[in-house]
């Protein structure tokens, strides 16, 4: 054997990089809209640098050995960044697999003996495949982080209690009302009643997609708790189809004040507080 695979890679580092970059630039999956060619070159250089630095004849078929940690770290960084930049899994996968092609091409040019070539190719194949697996794993992790962040943002914006008039609170509920959500809604509503000294709370369920018996039970509980605090509760935003469904289900909401729209609930609240809203009479101008 003239020179070992690892030796070959080390001495032909620059050529390998050129070969790989060429392949990536020629590929139709190149996304120069997401990443400049310089950045791409930098990334690729880092990865090849780490790979050629850490690879030895002994560890080439021991991918789990911690000598490859640096390579995996760089690769994970690249995949994670790509997931967040909006690369598709295919593009990210092809990135690492094009390195395999480049290495194999290099080996083909350098190793003349078929038997030796085959052994080398097998080794490289195994190594690069596990690098590919790492890419997928971290790519998915990157995507999951995006989802997690969005979930947190959604739960943050979910339940605002708004004071819409002196003594009148409104709580628009959007999305499904499950047990944990009800808990949050109830807590923030009751606290706001204390803070503002309000006597009327309007629960608007226009944004609740379906009202089943559990949702209704949660609503009834919230209303009872509000009453215990000495405030009155109005449920608004009951759509016609919801009204029919609630009746068929057999849920009794008759001792709760319900309104079709937030506007009519507000009007009712004004009436309860003995307030009237009226249009200012404009004095007729005499010409």
């Amino acid at each position, binding site marked *: 054997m003239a020179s070992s695979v690892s030796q070959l890679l080390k001495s032909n580092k620059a050529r390998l990089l050129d070969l790989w970059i060429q392949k990536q630039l020629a590929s139709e999956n190149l996304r120069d809209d997401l990443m400049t060619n310089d950045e791409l070159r930098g990334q690729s250089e880092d990865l090849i640098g780490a790979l050629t630095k850490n690879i030895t004849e002994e560890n080439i078929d021991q991918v789990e050995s911690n000598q490859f940690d640096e390579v995996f770290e760089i690769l994970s960084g690249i995949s994670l960044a790509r997931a967040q930049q909006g690369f598709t899994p295919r593009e990210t996968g092809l990135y690492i697999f094009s390195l395999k092609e480049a290495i194999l091409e290099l080996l083909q040019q350098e190793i003349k003996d078929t038997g030796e070539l085959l052994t080398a190719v097998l080794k490289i194949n195994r190594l690069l495949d596990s690098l590919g697996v790492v890419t997928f794993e971290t790519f998915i992790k990157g995507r999951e982080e995006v989802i997690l962040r969005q979930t947190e943002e959604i739960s943050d914006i979910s339940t605002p209690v708004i004071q819409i008039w002196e003594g009148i609170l409104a709580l628009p509920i959007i999305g499904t009302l*499950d047990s944990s959500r009800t808990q949050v809604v109830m807590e923030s509503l009751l606290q706001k009643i204390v803070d503002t000294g309000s006597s009327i709370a309007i629960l608007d369920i226009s944004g609740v997609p379906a*009202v*089943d018996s559990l949702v*209704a039970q949660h609503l009834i509980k919230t209303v009872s708790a509000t009453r215990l605090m000495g405030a009155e509760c109005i449920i608004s935003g009951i759509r016609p*189809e919801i009204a029919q*469904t609630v009746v068929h*289900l*057999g849920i009794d909401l008759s001792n709760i004040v319900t309104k079709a729209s937030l506007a009519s609930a507000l009007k009712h609240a004004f009436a309860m507080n003995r307030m009237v809203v009226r249009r200012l009479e404009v004095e007729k101008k005499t010409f």
Partner: protein
Amino acid sequence: MLMTLSKDSMSITREQDLVPFRNRVKEAAVKIGMGIVNQTKLITAASELVRNMFRYAGGGEVLIEIVSKGRESGVRLTFADKGPGIANLDLAMQDGYSTGKSLGLGLPGAKRLVNEFDLKSTVGQGTTVMILKWKNG
């Protein structure tokens, strides 16, 4: 004769599966052109049964089918779980009866919301509920 036009199944294991499941049912209902009232009734009934399945059996499988009979089409849902089963079906179908701390309206309410309702249960083996809502039912 009842014909199945499309079949789709989904497993329910967590409370969070409820929302995607409701969306799947809604999709099926919209596909056959079901009106908003019937859609809401079907989704609410489905929601009740999935909650039961999750609460008492810890999850299960739901089969979502679009069926047709003559000129009428509808959505059929089959909820199958391997939970403790229901000991007294008559009592379970009574308004206001619940072994949990709920309103006790799930099963009887769901039955009133759909056109066909079939409940089979074996204690210790599980429960299967089939509901069918016709497009214009």
